[in-house]
């Protein structure tokens, strides 16, 4: 589905990720882990088209999308639930979802919306509420729901559990698993290593902008200590 080849990204003169090769297959959750500042968010934002790709290629369904505008990527099937959620606070829940499905026809959007509502019934209850007044968890659901409205083939999720209470974290992870079962490719960035390992089919670890470890979910789960050491936490702790 998505393939990064010799990928590098950064901000002007600073390159924060280099020489990254990564494959994100459909029907799988791929977890991208790493300590703070490793470049996970930057990678995700670069795939979505918001951060400058400074080297290598981004291939999506075999086509080079390295230089495409963000909107065009969405049209091709990439959707983003960004770090910090970044819902539109002044718009209602309904309007947020409308923007999410902006590239879809009205009919398709209505259909997708029904599915999102089935996934997150809470959003139905808050349908006409200003999104800025939702609680943290509800906002996270909205961010996921908004991304799903674009009917993506690839979903990019940054910090799914940040600031969520445990029940909420659980709910959101369940939703992800359900989506992957439906055939979606998911690229997940997460600090909650245990939770991420539990859900992931593939795991890659990024440290200081370089990939230091890659394995299947099975392998990684068998040896979480191993992952920790790659995260650079083991020897510090």
């Amino acid at each position, binding site marked *: 589905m998505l393939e990064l080849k010799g990928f590098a990204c950064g901000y002007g003169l600073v390159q924060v990720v280099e020489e990254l090769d990564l494959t994100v297959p459909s029907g799988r959750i791929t977890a991208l882990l790493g300590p703070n500042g490793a470049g996970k968010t930057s990678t995700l934002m670069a795939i979505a088209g918001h951060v400058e790709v400074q080297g290598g290629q981004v291939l999506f369904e075999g086509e080079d999308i390295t230089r495409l*505008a*963000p*909107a065009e990527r969405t049209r091709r099937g990439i959707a983003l639930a960004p770090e910090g959620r970044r819902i*539109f606070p*002044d718009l209602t829940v309904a*309007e947020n979802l*409308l*923007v999410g499905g*902006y590239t879809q026809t009205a009919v398709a959007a209505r259909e997708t919306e029904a599915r999102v509502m089935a996934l997150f019934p809470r959003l139905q209850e808050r349908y006409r509420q200003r999104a800025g007044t939702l609680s943290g968890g509800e906002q996270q659901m909205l961010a996921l729901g908004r991304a799903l409205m674009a009917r993506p083939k690839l979903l990019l999720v940054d910090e799914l559990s940040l600031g969520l209470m445990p029940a909420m974290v659980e709910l959101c992870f369940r939703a992800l698993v359900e989506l992957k079962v439906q055939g979606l490719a998911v690229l997940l960035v997460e600090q909650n290593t245990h939770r991420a390992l539990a859900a992931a089919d593939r795991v890659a670890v990024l440290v200081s902008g370089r990939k230091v470890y890659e394995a299947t979910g099975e392998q990684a789960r068998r040896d979480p200590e191993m992952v920790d050491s790659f995260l650079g936490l083991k020897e510090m702790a």
Partner: protein
Amino acid sequence: MYYVELLLVGLVWGCTYAMMALGLTLVYGLLRILHVAQATVFTLGAYVGLLVANHTGSLAAAFVAAGLAAGALGPLIYRLVYQPILDKPPFVALVASIGVLIAMEDGFRLVFGPYGLSFAKNTWFTTSLRFGGLSLNLVQIWIAIAAVVLLLLFALFATRTRAGVAWRATVSDPAIAESFGVSVSGVRHLSFFIASVLAGVAGVLVGLLNNLVEPGMGSVISYKGLAIIVLGGLGNVPGTLLASVLLGVVESFGTVYLDKVMDRDAIAFMFLIVVLMIRPQGLLGKAH
């Protein structure tokens, strides 16, 4: 009767403000830019309208031409001036905008002369309708109608259409909106276009009302426009409307009753300051 007349005068004048201020609100809401250079768009509209009217004798043609000319200038200013400095602190755009205003005002003077031009025939202005002791001329009536209709259309657009929702999404987070397929650059150009057409049309109307089009005619109304968008609660469209009308009325009464104390501009800005000291977020703005 006298008070009713003062009120009416204020309302009509407030409508002119509204047409100017709505555009400023659009631009501010989207880009956080205090678009002082809107004044030159207004003035260009007035000049083009006047030249076309004097040439063809048709006011309809004048409005269309003015709207188009203004509608071209606004997005052009965005492209050449604002777009490259969007990520800079806001005063950068403000000073650049003031630079455009100074240069263009002088440009108008060089091209059209310092004296100002007037309409060869201005039947709208000379045709008055009388109701009891009140009289309004056709220009004033058109101003009121144009302001109300255009603002209603805009309100419908913003809340009821997909494009309107996309516009508001862009206001709150352009990068993410873009990511969902909203063409941010398109929305920005469109906003400048709408704002500029409004300003251009307002320019012709004010030109007709004064029967005079001059190089500096836009600056004061544009400063007041900025005061209005702040008064209304930056980026808030209904607030802008309310503030425009209120300011028109305050000025209308103030120029009579505070005549010995301060002039018209001072009255307007004193009102602004007093309101903001009581409600720092503006009349209909949201506290943060």
